[in-house]
């Protein structure tokens, strides 16, 4: 088997004295979609942020492309071609859509801004129509597309997506998930996805982890997890 692109080994992280992650082990192989599902407050978003060095892991190591990035400052980690579409989307509200995308390209050294922009616009055509509108005036779905588009502008080798379906209408959710699948299948982009929408996430992902109270409780392929009775009862029944 090849080397994992991202390897999280025994990572613990704290907010003050409260342990949010208690010894997490997760591997993401090149070209995979890996998902973490779990309830609110299980530590999924903390894991995402710990990969990006904010907060930094107190124990354990985060290894990206064979390099230990555990103690690098956030901006240096992101310059190694990891991009995140974070929880709550965090669009710059008083910048235009175009400027938000420009911010996304901040680490794309020597790249071709025009072709990166065209790629994002073809993935989410609505962004081109909205390009001179301020980020804060977009609808939730448009903001989510912008958050993903902004992350793509740096031409990442690993894309972290934190709850892209949160608070969106089912139609938009389907659109966003199909865009994620496209990115993975056509461009072989490796994606690490955190979701509460377990059904969609597990259907999409190659492999998944179930997180409970800062620990990994279960892991397996997406299909395996979808069929596990404990997953079905806790995260799926009635909750599609």
């Amino acid at each position, binding site marked *: 088997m090849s080397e994992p692109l991202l390897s999280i080994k025994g990572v613990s992280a704290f907010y003050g004295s409260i342990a949010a992650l208690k010894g997490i082990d997760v591997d993401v192989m090149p070209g995979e979609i890996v998902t973490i599902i779990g309830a609110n407050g299980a530590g999924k978003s903390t894991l995402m942020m710990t990969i990006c060095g904010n907060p930094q892991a107190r124990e354990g190591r985060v290894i990206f492309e064979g390099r230990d990035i555990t103690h690098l400052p956030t901006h240096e980690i*992101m310059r190694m071609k990891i991009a*995140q579409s974070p929880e709550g989307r965090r669009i*710059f*509200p*008083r*910048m235009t859509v175009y400027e938000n995308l420009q*911010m*996304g390209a901040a*680490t794309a050294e020597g790249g071709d801004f025009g072709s990166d922009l065209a790629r994002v616009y073809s993935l989410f055509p609505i962004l081109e129509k909205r390009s001179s509108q301020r980020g804060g005036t977009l609808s939730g779905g448009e903001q989510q597309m912008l958050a993903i588009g902004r992350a793509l502008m*740096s031409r990442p080798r690993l894309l972290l997506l934190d709850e892209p379906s949160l608070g969106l209408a089912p139609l938009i959710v389907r659109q966003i998930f199909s865009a994620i699948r496209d990115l993975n299948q056509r461009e072989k982009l490796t994606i690490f996805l955190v979701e509460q929408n377990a059904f969609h996430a597990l259907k999409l992902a190659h492999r998944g982890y179930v997180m409970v109270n800062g620990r990994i409780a279960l892991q397996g392929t997406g299909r395996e997890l979808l069929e596990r009775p404990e997953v079905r009862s806790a995260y799926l029944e009635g909750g599609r």
Partner: protein
Amino acid sequence: MEYFLQQSINGFALGSIYGLVAIGYTMVYGIIGMINFAHGDIFMVGTFIALIAFLILVAIGITAIPLALFLMLLIAMLLTSLYGWAVERIAYRPLRGSFRLAPLISAIGMSIVLQNYVQLAQGARVKTLQPLITGTHTVLDLGNRFVVQISNIQILIVLTTLALMTGFTWIISSTSLGRDMRACEQDLKMAALLGVDTNRTISLTFLIGAALASVAGMMYLLYYGVIDFHIGFVAGVKAFTAAVLGGIGSLPGAMLGGLLIGLIETYWSAYFSVQYKDVAAFSILIVVLIFMPTGILGRPEVEKV
């Protein structure tokens, strides 16, 4: 009428100086949400560096006024911005992530440190500079006793301020540095997630703010010709008032607030009482804080999600 016009010209020049200082307050507030109480003293340091630079230039024989002024400006901007940078690095950055009041207390401490340092290094007595830029132009002469005039130094102050504001607005709106600064202002955590070195951007903000304050300081020196180690306090509080009046966090607001404070102060001195001009400026601060806390161009504080 002529008297009013004359006071407006005077107020405009003074307001330009306040506006340049106010930008430093408003930028720092925008990006890290703290009031940099040492900024007025950075302005004061700027006046001293400009004066010392001038004396050195004269000593080494550079007496052509335009060249001397230009070199003064360069030296003052360079050295004062180093002060601004150092203040952030020493007194504020170690406290980032600490409780909200910590950098504020540190800023007040830094203000005292700078004042005492200049007092010890330069002495407590006032320093004077003979007028370098002389000459006035008659704007309006209706034949009665009062002639409205504008002096060359006033023209210089307003033009310099205009040029700096134009350049600065361009940096903020159209360069990648300006975009990074706005990104940090709107969401510091997200800016870091996009690979922006937020510490560096914050340092540059302090650097630029101090450079603008030093230009204001040099203008003040040329305009009034009298400085001492204590001028930073009152000038600083007035510039802060200007930033609050214009809407703290808003760059055009800082400039507008500066002009308004300059005008109000000048009218007050002209029509009421020159002794109470500071009272006028500070009453405005109180009234604005009570009735219009977001200022003229400020936005209402929206809780970030």
